[in-house]
């Protein structure tokens, strides 16, 4: 990948991640559902990867509609 910084949004469970994915898709914000990176958690799970520059936009879209646990650097 190019030198694009990514952050990942972590959720309480898979269903939250799916809901968030739907929201971002409708909002037209580029995202990718990926397995949670091992350096963040060893539990199985998926998270939403987005480019760093859109973190604020994503938080705005999700706020009040779906809860997220935290945002971490990829």
């Amino acid at each position, binding site marked *: 990948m190019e030198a694009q910084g990514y952050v990942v949004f972590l959720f309480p469970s898979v269903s939250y991640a799916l809901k968030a994915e739907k929201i971002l898709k409708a909002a037209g914000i580029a995202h990718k559902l*990926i397995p949670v990176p091992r350096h963040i958690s060893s539990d199985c799970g*998926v998270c939403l990867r987005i480019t760093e520059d859109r973190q604020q936009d994503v938080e705005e879209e999700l706020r009040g509609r779906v809860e997220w646990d935290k945002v971490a650097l990829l």
Partner: protein
Amino acid sequence: MTATIDARGLDCPQPVIMAKKACEENEEVIVLVDNEMAVENIRRLALKMACGFSVTEKEGGLREITLVQTGAIDKTLEGRGPSAEEDELSCVAAGGKKETGPLVVILSDNHMGRGDDVLGDILIRSFVHTLLQLKPRPDTIICYNSGVKLAVKDSAVLDDLQELAKNGVDILVCGTCVSYFELGDQVAAGHISNMYDIAETMAGAGRLLRP
């Protein structure tokens, strides 16, 4: 009749298969092998076929095995399908020899696992994404049936497949399937292939990965 089989340099299970065939057609068979593993495997075969077995070690690592029909037939082998026999011909690999041959990944579905398609969609996306980090990297990915849908323009894993292709992974997309799903102009990763190449690739694989 005595037959001599030269099985030197041949990989398991070749020596055993050749020895077995020769035993079926000859009263006495001499098998030449160059490793202990083959000796052991043929010893087991002899037991199963109730053949007399003896082995002499010769120069340069050569082993000469003599198998003699005693006329007794192993009744348990009669009437069983070829695959049952092949299971029994399976080799004792000394120290877990690693198979050579390409690592081939089969994407036969655009879902992973059965029981829930929403979950299956998440899982296959995760799986394809992690292929990039696999060591050793897959040599080939084969997509057929709904698996071809992973290689089309709006696929969630298109970028992963394209990245894999950039890194030298050969991606085969079944042409019959593409045509059946009417996705002809939408394939965006890999190249269209046919059942001959697909079957050949699967047959020649060292390992087959099926998520």
